[in-house]
Protein backbone atom coordinates (compact mmCIF):
# COMPACT_ATOMS: atom_id res chain seq x y z
CA UNK A 1 0.00 0.00 0.00
CA UNK A 2 1.38 3.42 -0.87
CA UNK A 3 2.69 5.51 2.02
CA UNK A 4 2.38 8.82 0.25
CA UNK A 5 -0.38 10.55 2.25
CA UNK A 6 -1.35 12.67 -0.78
CA UNK A 7 -2.57 9.43 -2.50
CA UNK A 8 -4.87 8.48 0.43
CA UNK A 9 -8.21 9.74 1.71
CA UNK A 10 -9.90 9.11 5.06
CA UNK A 11 -13.18 7.20 5.18
CA UNK A 12 -15.25 7.17 8.35
CA UNK A 13 -17.16 4.11 9.45
CA UNK A 14 -19.18 3.49 12.64
CA UNK A 15 -16.95 2.51 15.56
CA UNK A 16 -18.85 -0.74 16.26
CA UNK A 17 -18.38 -1.78 12.63
CA UNK A 18 -14.65 -1.08 12.86
CA UNK A 19 -14.46 -3.23 16.01
CA UNK A 20 -16.42 -6.06 14.40
CA UNK A 21 -14.21 -6.10 11.30
CA UNK A 22 -11.10 -6.03 13.53
CA UNK A 23 -12.30 -9.28 15.12
CA UNK A 24 -13.11 -10.81 11.74
CA UNK A 25 -9.64 -10.27 10.27
CA UNK A 26 -7.80 -11.84 13.22
CA UNK A 27 -5.77 -14.81 11.99
CA UNK A 28 -6.14 -13.77 8.36
CA UNK A 29 -3.50 -12.22 6.14
CA UNK A 30 -5.00 -8.76 6.57
CA UNK A 31 -2.88 -6.63 8.89
CA UNK A 32 -5.43 -3.88 9.42
CA UNK A 33 -9.06 -2.93 8.90
CA UNK A 34 -7.83 -0.38 6.36
CA UNK A 35 -6.06 -3.12 4.37
CA UNK A 36 -9.18 -5.35 4.49
CA UNK A 37 -11.55 -2.52 3.53
CA UNK A 38 -9.26 -1.51 0.63
CA UNK A 39 -9.24 -5.13 -0.62
CA UNK A 40 -13.06 -5.43 -0.48
CA UNK A 41 -13.68 -2.10 -2.15
CA UNK A 42 -11.17 -2.77 -4.93
CA UNK A 43 -12.92 -6.07 -5.63
CA UNK A 44 -16.33 -4.42 -5.83
CA UNK A 45 -15.04 -1.62 -8.03
CA UNK A 46 -13.52 -4.11 -10.49
CA UNK A 47 -16.88 -5.88 -11.28
CA UNK A 48 -18.72 -4.87 -14.51
CA UNK A 49 -21.44 -2.34 -13.94
CA UNK A 50 -24.93 -3.91 -14.38
CA UNK A 51 -26.82 -2.38 -17.32
CA UNK A 52 -30.48 -1.76 -16.54
CA UNK A 53 -32.87 -3.02 -19.25
CA UNK A 54 -34.00 -0.42 -21.75
CA UNK A 55 -37.23 1.26 -20.65
CA UNK A 56 -39.09 -0.06 -23.75
CA UNK A 57 -38.17 -3.67 -22.96
CA UNK A 58 -39.25 -3.30 -19.34
CA UNK A 59 -42.60 -1.93 -20.42
CA UNK A 60 -43.08 -4.32 -23.38
CA UNK A 61 -44.94 -7.15 -21.62
CA UNK A 62 -47.69 -4.79 -20.52
CA UNK A 63 -47.51 -2.54 -23.53
CA UNK A 64 -50.17 -4.31 -25.58
CA UNK A 65 -52.71 -4.15 -22.78
CA UNK A 66 -51.62 -0.73 -21.59
CA UNK A 67 -52.15 0.84 -25.00
CA UNK A 68 -55.77 1.33 -24.09
CA UNK A 69 -56.65 4.65 -22.55
CA UNK A 70 -58.31 4.79 -19.15
CA UNK A 71 -61.55 5.70 -20.85
CA UNK A 72 -61.31 2.64 -23.12
CA UNK A 73 -60.52 0.38 -20.19
CA UNK A 74 -63.42 1.79 -18.24
CA UNK A 75 -65.78 1.36 -21.19
CA UNK A 76 -64.63 -2.22 -21.76
CA UNK A 77 -65.06 -3.15 -18.10
CA UNK A 78 -68.50 -1.53 -18.01
CA UNK A 79 -69.65 -3.51 -21.03
CA UNK A 80 -68.20 -6.74 -19.67
CA UNK A 81 -70.09 -6.19 -16.40
CA UNK A 82 -73.32 -5.39 -18.23
CA UNK A 83 -72.99 -8.57 -20.28
CA UNK A 84 -72.25 -10.63 -17.18
CA UNK A 85 -68.69 -11.56 -18.04
CA UNK A 86 -67.38 -9.69 -14.96
Amino acid at each position, binding site marked *: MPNNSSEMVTLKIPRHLYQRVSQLIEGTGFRSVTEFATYVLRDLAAQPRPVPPAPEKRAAP*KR*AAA*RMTQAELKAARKR*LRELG*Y*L
Partner: protein
Amino acid sequence: MISPHGGRLIDRTVSGEDRERLTREAEHMPKLPLNQRELADLEMIATGAMSPLTGFMTEADYHSVVDTMRLANGLVWSIPVVLSAKSPEHERLQPGTQVALTDDAGRALAVLDLADRYQVDHDYEGQMVLRTTDEAHPGVQYLKSISSIYLGGNIHLMRHPEHRDFLRYRLEPKETRVLFAAKGWNRIAAFQTRNPIHRAHEYLQKCALEQVDGLLIHPLVGETKKDDIPAEVRMRCYEELIAHYYPRDRVVLSVFPAAMRYAGPREAIFHALIRKNYGCTHFIVGRDHAGVGDYYGTYEAHAIFGEFDPEDIAIAPLFFDHAFYCRKCGNMATTKTCPHSSEERAIFSGTRVRQMLAEGELPPPEFTRPEVAQILIESMRREDKQ
Protein backbone atom coordinates in the same frame (compact mmCIF):
# COMPACT_ATOMS: atom_id res chain seq x y z
CA MET B 1 -50.73 -10.10 -22.41
CA ILE B 2 -49.70 -11.21 -25.87
CA SER B 3 -49.01 -8.40 -28.32
CA PRO B 4 -51.41 -7.93 -31.21
CA HIS B 5 -50.10 -8.97 -34.61
CA GLY B 6 -47.83 -6.19 -35.78
CA GLY B 7 -47.43 -4.88 -32.22
CA ARG B 8 -50.42 -2.56 -32.02
CA LEU B 9 -54.16 -3.13 -31.65
CA ILE B 10 -55.68 -1.17 -34.50
CA ASP B 11 -58.67 1.06 -33.83
CA ARG B 12 -60.30 2.58 -36.88
CA THR B 13 -63.47 3.74 -35.17
CA VAL B 14 -64.26 7.43 -35.15
CA SER B 15 -66.35 9.14 -32.52
CA GLY B 16 -67.57 12.52 -31.39
CA GLU B 17 -67.21 15.45 -33.76
CA ASP B 18 -65.14 13.43 -36.22
CA ARG B 19 -67.94 10.92 -36.55
CA GLU B 20 -70.55 13.63 -37.03
CA ARG B 21 -68.44 15.37 -39.66
CA LEU B 22 -67.66 12.18 -41.54
CA THR B 23 -71.28 11.06 -41.41
CA ARG B 24 -72.34 14.38 -42.97
CA GLU B 25 -69.64 14.20 -45.62
CA ALA B 26 -70.52 10.59 -46.45
CA GLU B 27 -73.93 11.72 -47.69
CA HIS B 28 -72.17 13.32 -50.66
CA MET B 29 -69.72 10.53 -51.36
CA PRO B 30 -70.12 7.73 -53.86
CA LYS B 31 -71.77 4.78 -52.10
CA LEU B 32 -70.53 1.22 -52.11
CA PRO B 33 -72.72 -1.44 -50.48
CA LEU B 34 -70.93 -4.21 -48.63
CA ASN B 35 -71.78 -7.89 -48.85
CA GLN B 36 -71.99 -10.02 -45.70
CA ARG B 37 -68.33 -11.01 -45.74
CA GLU B 38 -67.20 -7.42 -46.27
CA LEU B 39 -69.47 -6.15 -43.49
CA ALA B 40 -67.90 -8.61 -41.07
CA ASP B 41 -64.40 -7.79 -42.29
CA LEU B 42 -65.09 -4.06 -41.97
CA GLU B 43 -66.07 -4.44 -38.33
CA MET B 44 -63.12 -6.69 -37.60
CA ILE B 45 -60.64 -4.33 -39.26
CA ALA B 46 -62.09 -1.37 -37.36
CA THR B 47 -62.00 -3.06 -33.95
CA GLY B 48 -58.50 -4.45 -34.31
CA ALA B 49 -59.41 -8.10 -34.78
CA MET B 50 -57.49 -8.01 -38.04
CA SER B 51 -54.52 -5.98 -36.76
CA PRO B 52 -52.30 -4.82 -38.41
CA LEU B 53 -54.79 -4.22 -41.22
CA THR B 54 -56.12 -0.66 -41.26
CA GLY B 55 -58.38 -1.12 -44.25
CA PHE B 56 -59.17 -3.33 -47.19
CA MET B 57 -56.04 -4.53 -48.93
CA THR B 58 -54.24 -2.44 -51.47
CA GLU B 59 -52.78 -4.07 -54.54
CA ALA B 60 -49.32 -4.52 -53.05
CA ASP B 61 -50.60 -6.26 -49.93
CA TYR B 62 -53.11 -8.34 -51.92
CA HIS B 63 -50.50 -9.77 -54.28
CA SER B 64 -48.00 -10.27 -51.48
CA VAL B 65 -50.55 -12.17 -49.38
CA VAL B 66 -51.72 -14.30 -52.28
CA ASP B 67 -48.20 -15.15 -53.41
CA THR B 68 -46.26 -15.35 -50.15
CA MET B 69 -48.71 -15.37 -47.23
CA ARG B 70 -47.11 -12.17 -46.02
CA LEU B 71 -48.11 -8.53 -46.22
CA ALA B 72 -45.89 -6.23 -48.25
CA ASN B 73 -44.17 -5.26 -44.99
CA GLY B 74 -43.27 -8.89 -44.29
CA LEU B 75 -45.78 -9.63 -41.54
CA VAL B 76 -47.45 -13.00 -41.90
CA TRP B 77 -50.97 -12.86 -43.30
CA SER B 78 -52.51 -15.73 -45.23
CA ILE B 79 -55.94 -14.66 -46.56
CA PRO B 80 -56.61 -11.55 -48.65
CA VAL B 81 -59.11 -9.20 -47.00
CA VAL B 82 -60.59 -7.34 -49.92
CA LEU B 83 -63.43 -5.13 -51.04
CA SER B 84 -64.99 -5.76 -54.43
CA ALA B 85 -66.61 -3.25 -56.75
CA LYS B 86 -70.38 -3.63 -57.03
CA SER B 87 -71.07 -1.65 -60.20
CA PRO B 88 -69.38 -0.22 -63.29
CA GLU B 89 -69.31 3.14 -61.48
CA HIS B 90 -67.28 1.62 -58.67
CA GLU B 91 -64.93 0.12 -61.21
CA ARG B 92 -64.16 3.65 -62.40
CA LEU B 93 -63.54 5.22 -58.99
CA GLN B 94 -60.24 7.02 -58.81
CA PRO B 95 -57.64 6.65 -56.06
CA GLY B 96 -57.86 9.63 -53.75
CA THR B 97 -61.65 9.47 -53.65
CA GLN B 98 -63.47 8.91 -50.40
CA VAL B 99 -66.20 6.31 -50.66
CA ALA B 100 -69.06 5.70 -48.23
CA LEU B 101 -69.36 2.01 -47.36
CA THR B 102 -72.97 1.10 -46.71
CA ASP B 103 -75.00 -1.77 -45.32
CA ASP B 104 -77.94 -3.42 -47.07
CA ALA B 105 -80.25 -0.70 -45.73
CA GLY B 106 -78.12 1.99 -47.34
CA ARG B 107 -76.72 3.28 -44.05
CA ALA B 108 -73.19 4.66 -44.30
CA LEU B 109 -71.12 2.67 -41.82
CA ALA B 110 -67.65 3.76 -42.80
CA VAL B 111 -65.58 5.80 -45.19
CA LEU B 112 -62.94 4.27 -47.40
CA ASP B 113 -59.94 6.39 -48.38
CA LEU B 114 -59.53 4.82 -51.79
CA ALA B 115 -55.83 4.23 -52.41
CA ASP B 116 -55.95 1.50 -55.03
CA ARG B 117 -58.30 0.14 -57.65
CA TYR B 118 -56.97 -3.02 -59.23
CA GLN B 119 -58.01 -6.02 -61.26
CA VAL B 120 -57.32 -9.53 -60.05
CA ASP B 121 -57.39 -13.04 -61.47
CA HIS B 122 -59.89 -15.03 -59.45
CA ASP B 123 -58.65 -18.34 -60.82
CA TYR B 124 -55.17 -17.49 -59.60
CA GLU B 125 -56.47 -16.33 -56.22
CA GLY B 126 -58.47 -19.54 -55.90
CA GLN B 127 -55.53 -21.71 -56.83
CA MET B 128 -53.20 -20.00 -54.40
CA VAL B 129 -55.47 -19.31 -51.43
CA LEU B 130 -58.02 -22.11 -51.67
CA ARG B 131 -55.72 -24.58 -53.46
CA THR B 132 -58.48 -25.20 -55.96
CA THR B 133 -60.50 -23.62 -58.74
CA ASP B 134 -63.25 -26.26 -58.51
CA GLU B 135 -66.54 -24.41 -58.70
CA ALA B 136 -68.06 -26.82 -56.17
CA HIS B 137 -65.80 -25.27 -53.51
CA PRO B 138 -67.76 -22.62 -51.57
CA GLY B 139 -64.78 -20.28 -51.52
CA VAL B 140 -64.46 -20.49 -55.31
CA GLN B 141 -68.21 -19.86 -55.58
CA TYR B 142 -67.74 -16.70 -53.55
CA LEU B 143 -64.96 -15.51 -55.84
CA LYS B 144 -67.11 -16.17 -58.90
CA SER B 145 -69.91 -14.10 -57.33
CA ILE B 146 -67.88 -10.90 -56.90
CA SER B 147 -66.23 -8.44 -59.24
CA SER B 148 -62.60 -8.95 -60.16
CA ILE B 149 -62.05 -5.24 -59.49
CA TYR B 150 -60.94 -4.68 -55.94
CA LEU B 151 -60.77 -1.38 -54.07
CA GLY B 152 -58.20 -0.89 -51.33
CA GLY B 153 -57.47 1.70 -48.69
CA ASN B 154 -57.86 2.68 -45.07
CA ILE B 155 -61.26 2.75 -43.47
CA HIS B 156 -62.88 4.93 -40.81
CA LEU B 157 -65.80 3.30 -39.03
CA MET B 158 -68.57 5.66 -37.97
CA ARG B 159 -71.18 3.08 -37.12
CA HIS B 160 -71.02 -0.63 -36.35
CA PRO B 161 -73.00 -3.00 -38.57
CA GLU B 162 -76.37 -3.63 -37.00
CA HIS B 163 -76.57 -6.92 -35.13
CA ARG B 164 -79.73 -8.56 -33.88
CA ASP B 165 -78.26 -11.82 -32.67
CA PHE B 166 -75.76 -12.97 -30.05
CA LEU B 167 -75.61 -9.46 -28.60
CA ARG B 168 -74.53 -10.83 -25.25
CA TYR B 169 -71.58 -12.58 -26.89
CA ARG B 170 -70.19 -9.95 -29.23
CA LEU B 171 -66.88 -9.01 -27.61
CA GLU B 172 -64.25 -6.98 -29.42
CA PRO B 173 -60.52 -7.61 -28.98
CA LYS B 174 -60.19 -4.76 -26.47
CA GLU B 175 -62.90 -6.38 -24.38
CA THR B 176 -61.56 -9.92 -24.47
CA ARG B 177 -58.13 -8.61 -23.52
CA VAL B 178 -59.55 -6.70 -20.57
CA LEU B 179 -61.60 -9.75 -19.59
CA PHE B 180 -58.63 -12.11 -19.66
CA ALA B 181 -56.57 -9.66 -17.61
CA ALA B 182 -59.40 -9.23 -15.10
CA LYS B 183 -59.59 -13.00 -14.71
CA GLY B 184 -55.86 -13.15 -14.12
CA TRP B 185 -55.35 -15.34 -17.18
CA ASN B 186 -51.94 -15.23 -18.83
CA ARG B 187 -52.33 -18.25 -21.11
CA ILE B 188 -55.54 -18.54 -23.09
CA ALA B 189 -56.35 -21.19 -25.66
CA ALA B 190 -58.81 -20.27 -28.41
CA PHE B 191 -61.10 -22.79 -30.11
CA GLN B 192 -62.56 -21.96 -33.50
CA THR B 193 -65.55 -23.85 -34.86
CA ARG B 194 -68.38 -23.60 -37.34
CA ASN B 195 -69.95 -26.85 -36.06
CA PRO B 196 -71.54 -28.04 -32.84
CA ILE B 197 -69.03 -29.21 -30.25
CA HIS B 198 -69.10 -32.98 -29.97
CA ARG B 199 -67.10 -35.18 -27.58
CA ALA B 200 -64.01 -35.13 -29.80
CA HIS B 201 -63.91 -31.32 -29.84
CA GLU B 202 -64.63 -31.19 -26.12
CA TYR B 203 -61.68 -33.49 -25.55
CA LEU B 204 -59.32 -31.24 -27.52
CA GLN B 205 -60.49 -28.19 -25.61
CA LYS B 206 -60.06 -29.82 -22.24
CA CYS B 207 -56.63 -31.15 -23.12
CA ALA B 208 -55.69 -27.58 -24.00
CA LEU B 209 -57.30 -26.24 -20.83
CA GLU B 210 -55.06 -28.51 -18.76
CA GLN B 211 -52.11 -26.49 -20.08
CA VAL B 212 -53.48 -22.95 -19.95
CA ASP B 213 -55.38 -20.66 -17.61
CA GLY B 214 -58.55 -20.28 -19.65
CA LEU B 215 -60.38 -21.32 -22.77
CA LEU B 216 -62.03 -19.02 -25.30
CA ILE B 217 -64.71 -20.87 -27.21
CA HIS B 218 -64.96 -18.59 -30.24
CA PRO B 219 -67.46 -19.95 -32.75
CA LEU B 220 -67.64 -18.34 -36.16
CA VAL B 221 -71.07 -16.79 -36.67
CA GLY B 222 -70.51 -14.96 -39.96
CA GLU B 223 -71.59 -16.21 -43.35
CA THR B 224 -71.30 -19.96 -43.86
CA LYS B 225 -72.46 -22.32 -46.58
CA LYS B 226 -76.12 -23.26 -46.68
CA ASP B 227 -75.77 -26.78 -45.32
CA ASP B 228 -73.71 -25.73 -42.28
CA ILE B 229 -75.73 -25.77 -39.07
CA PRO B 230 -77.12 -22.28 -38.39
CA ALA B 231 -75.25 -20.20 -35.87
CA GLU B 232 -78.27 -19.75 -33.57
CA VAL B 233 -78.66 -23.54 -33.25
CA ARG B 234 -74.96 -23.96 -32.60
CA MET B 235 -74.92 -21.24 -29.96
CA ARG B 236 -77.64 -23.03 -28.01
CA CYS B 237 -75.54 -26.18 -28.21
CA TYR B 238 -72.49 -24.34 -26.88
CA GLU B 239 -74.44 -22.74 -24.04
CA GLU B 240 -75.93 -26.07 -22.99
CA LEU B 241 -72.60 -27.85 -23.20
CA ILE B 242 -70.75 -25.23 -21.14
CA ALA B 243 -73.53 -25.15 -18.54
CA HIS B 244 -73.35 -28.91 -17.94
CA TYR B 245 -69.81 -29.96 -18.68
CA TYR B 246 -67.33 -27.08 -18.40
CA PRO B 247 -65.90 -25.21 -15.38
CA ARG B 248 -67.58 -21.83 -15.71
CA ASP B 249 -64.64 -19.92 -14.26
CA ARG B 250 -62.30 -21.29 -16.91
CA VAL B 251 -64.30 -20.73 -20.07
CA VAL B 252 -65.39 -17.68 -22.03
CA LEU B 253 -67.92 -18.02 -24.83
CA SER B 254 -67.85 -15.20 -27.35
CA VAL B 255 -68.63 -15.05 -31.06
CA PHE B 256 -66.23 -14.63 -33.94
CA PRO B 257 -68.05 -12.49 -36.51
CA ALA B 258 -66.02 -13.45 -39.57
CA ALA B 259 -67.33 -15.14 -42.69
CA MET B 260 -66.02 -18.61 -43.42
CA ARG B 261 -63.57 -18.91 -46.31
CA TYR B 262 -63.22 -22.74 -46.29
CA ALA B 263 -59.54 -22.20 -47.12
CA GLY B 264 -58.21 -25.02 -44.97
CA PRO B 265 -54.53 -24.51 -44.13
CA ARG B 266 -54.35 -20.83 -45.02
CA GLU B 267 -57.44 -20.17 -42.94
CA ALA B 268 -55.87 -21.92 -39.96
CA ILE B 269 -53.09 -19.32 -39.99
CA PHE B 270 -55.66 -16.54 -40.51
CA HIS B 271 -57.78 -17.77 -37.61
CA ALA B 272 -54.74 -18.10 -35.34
CA LEU B 273 -53.45 -14.59 -36.01
CA ILE B 274 -56.87 -13.05 -35.41
CA ARG B 275 -57.23 -14.91 -32.08
CA LYS B 276 -53.87 -13.50 -31.09
CA ASN B 277 -55.42 -10.08 -31.58
CA TYR B 278 -58.21 -11.12 -29.24
CA GLY B 279 -55.55 -11.80 -26.61
CA CYS B 280 -55.17 -15.56 -26.92
CA THR B 281 -51.77 -17.19 -26.55
CA HIS B 282 -52.65 -20.61 -27.93
CA PHE B 283 -54.81 -21.81 -30.79
CA ILE B 284 -56.30 -25.29 -31.10
CA VAL B 285 -55.88 -26.85 -34.53
CA GLY B 286 -57.64 -30.16 -35.01
CA ARG B 287 -58.01 -32.32 -38.06
CA ASP B 288 -58.91 -30.62 -41.35
CA HIS B 289 -59.20 -27.15 -39.82
CA ALA B 290 -61.46 -24.89 -41.92
CA GLY B 291 -61.72 -27.63 -44.47
CA VAL B 292 -64.58 -28.66 -46.73
CA GLY B 293 -65.08 -31.88 -48.65
CA ASP B 294 -61.79 -33.48 -49.63
CA TYR B 295 -59.97 -30.37 -50.80
CA TYR B 296 -57.33 -30.47 -48.09
CA GLY B 297 -55.29 -33.21 -46.47
CA THR B 298 -56.33 -34.13 -42.95
CA TYR B 299 -53.32 -32.48 -41.35
CA GLU B 300 -52.34 -29.86 -43.92
CA ALA B 301 -53.52 -27.22 -41.48
CA HIS B 302 -50.91 -28.46 -39.00
CA ALA B 303 -48.11 -28.61 -41.55
CA ILE B 304 -48.59 -25.05 -42.80
CA PHE B 305 -47.47 -23.64 -39.45
CA GLY B 306 -44.08 -25.20 -40.14
CA GLU B 307 -43.64 -22.84 -43.08
CA PHE B 308 -43.16 -19.95 -40.68
CA ASP B 309 -40.76 -19.06 -37.93
CA PRO B 310 -42.84 -19.51 -34.73
CA GLU B 311 -41.93 -15.96 -33.69
CA ASP B 312 -43.60 -14.65 -36.83
CA ILE B 313 -46.89 -16.23 -35.79
CA ALA B 314 -46.33 -15.85 -32.02
CA ILE B 315 -49.58 -17.52 -31.00
CA ALA B 316 -48.76 -21.15 -30.22
CA PRO B 317 -50.68 -23.76 -32.22
CA LEU B 318 -51.89 -26.79 -30.29
CA PHE B 319 -52.14 -29.59 -32.82
CA PHE B 320 -54.50 -32.46 -32.27
CA ASP B 321 -55.01 -35.58 -34.31
CA HIS B 322 -58.35 -37.28 -34.95
CA ALA B 323 -60.11 -37.76 -31.59
CA PHE B 324 -62.69 -40.39 -30.62
CA TYR B 325 -63.91 -42.52 -27.71
CA CYS B 326 -62.05 -45.83 -27.42
CA ARG B 327 -63.99 -48.59 -25.65
CA LYS B 328 -60.79 -50.48 -24.90
CA CYS B 329 -59.01 -47.41 -23.46
CA GLY B 330 -62.23 -46.44 -21.68
CA ASN B 331 -61.75 -42.77 -22.50
CA MET B 332 -61.43 -40.16 -25.21
CA ALA B 333 -58.18 -40.45 -27.14
CA THR B 334 -56.60 -39.65 -30.46
CA THR B 335 -54.70 -41.69 -33.02
CA LYS B 336 -51.56 -40.53 -31.18
CA THR B 337 -52.58 -41.86 -27.78
CA CYS B 338 -54.71 -44.93 -28.55
CA PRO B 339 -53.06 -48.21 -29.67
CA HIS B 340 -56.31 -50.05 -30.41
CA SER B 341 -58.01 -50.93 -33.66
CA SER B 342 -60.84 -49.00 -35.23
CA GLU B 343 -63.33 -51.66 -34.04
CA GLU B 344 -62.80 -50.38 -30.52
CA ARG B 345 -63.39 -46.74 -31.47
CA ALA B 346 -66.75 -44.97 -31.49
CA ILE B 347 -66.36 -43.22 -34.81
CA PHE B 348 -69.41 -42.09 -36.78
CA SER B 349 -69.56 -40.51 -40.20
CA GLY B 350 -71.23 -37.13 -40.52
CA THR B 351 -73.82 -38.76 -42.79
CA ARG B 352 -74.71 -41.41 -40.19
CA VAL B 353 -74.96 -38.81 -37.41
CA ARG B 354 -77.24 -36.59 -39.50
CA GLN B 355 -79.41 -39.61 -40.29
CA MET B 356 -79.73 -40.49 -36.60
CA LEU B 357 -80.60 -36.93 -35.67
CA ALA B 358 -83.10 -36.66 -38.51
CA GLU B 359 -84.81 -39.78 -37.20
CA GLY B 360 -84.91 -38.37 -33.69
CA GLU B 361 -82.37 -40.88 -32.45
CA LEU B 362 -79.75 -39.72 -29.96
CA PRO B 363 -76.23 -40.62 -31.12
CA PRO B 364 -74.20 -42.51 -28.50
CA PRO B 365 -72.98 -40.31 -25.62
CA GLU B 366 -69.43 -41.30 -26.58
CA PHE B 367 -69.94 -39.26 -29.74
CA THR B 368 -71.93 -36.30 -28.49
CA ARG B 369 -73.51 -35.09 -25.28
CA PRO B 370 -77.26 -35.88 -25.17
CA GLU B 371 -78.12 -32.24 -24.41
CA VAL B 372 -76.40 -31.17 -27.65
CA ALA B 373 -78.04 -33.96 -29.64
CA GLN B 374 -81.48 -32.98 -28.34
CA ILE B 375 -81.06 -29.40 -29.56
CA LEU B 376 -79.95 -30.65 -32.98
CA ILE B 377 -82.89 -33.07 -33.21
CA GLU B 378 -85.38 -30.33 -32.36
CA SER B 379 -83.74 -28.01 -34.88
CA MET B 380 -84.06 -30.60 -37.66
CA ARG B 381 -87.71 -31.18 -36.76
CA ARG B 382 -88.39 -27.45 -37.07
CA GLU B 383 -86.65 -27.40 -40.45
CA ASP B 384 -88.77 -30.29 -41.70
CA LYS B 385 -91.95 -28.46 -40.71
CA GLN B 386 -90.97 -25.32 -42.67
